[in-house]
């Protein structure tokens, strides 16, 4: 469960005002991708095209107005959407603003490093590369 990327930003709006932009297709399409089809409830579909990159997954958690977790994978793969790569977005109120914390975890190779034999120092190097 290695975070490979953490990004934070502060938005001048309340978490209640920001949250719909994480779950409503008409709002998601304005910042996240060129095409969006989502069903924002646990187990519901998360499908976004980001330019050339087609992202497919499902929502794992939808806790308005504080937190959204969805899996993040690419089409044609049966294992990836099952929780191998996940994105968690947490909204934290700070005064009149909201701190948005996004964490992307567990690319498939990194995930398997934890419980499969055969990953050796090379993968340790990969993991450290991803955590730079």
């Amino acid at each position: 469960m290695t975070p490979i990327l953490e990004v934070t930003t502060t938005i001048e709006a309340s978490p209640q005002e920001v949250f719909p932009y994480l779950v409503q297709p008409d709002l998601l399409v304005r910042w996240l991708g060129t095409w969006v089809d989502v069903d924002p409830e646990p187990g519901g579909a998360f499908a976004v095209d980001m330019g050339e990159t087609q992202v497919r997954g499902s929502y794992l958690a939808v806790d308005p107005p504080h937190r959204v977790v969805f899996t993040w994978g690419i089409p044609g793969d049966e294992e990836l959407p099952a929780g191998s790569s996940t994105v968690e977005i947490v909204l934290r109120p700070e005064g009149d603003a909201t701190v948005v914390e996004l964490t992307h975890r567990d690319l498939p190779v990194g995930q398997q490093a934890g419980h499969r034999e055969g990953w050796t120092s090379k993968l340790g190097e990969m993991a450290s590369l991803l955590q730079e």
Partner: protein
Amino acid sequence: MTAEAPDLVLRALADPTRRTMLRLVSSQELAAGQIATHFPMTQQAVSLHIQVLHRAGLVSERREGTRRLYLLRPDALRPVRDLLDDLWPDALDRLKRIVEEDKRSRS
């Protein structure tokens, strides 16, 4: 780095067979024939998978006589990291701008 590099890496990683192949060559250099013994498929099919990994830059290829030897490249996932490094900060910048613009236009 080419624009399609992250896409190639993600597609290469999206297949369970190819991920198993990566594990096999993570600690030792193996010939295509040695890799093929681990999979219930033809050597031609195995070779196609190996070429996908090679084109994505995930494995190195070295000729030794008539054999070709493959090894995981330690910097293989760099394109994916670069993709995410570009993607998420840009996306959150857009989110911030749009939410704040919408809020101003409502008030």
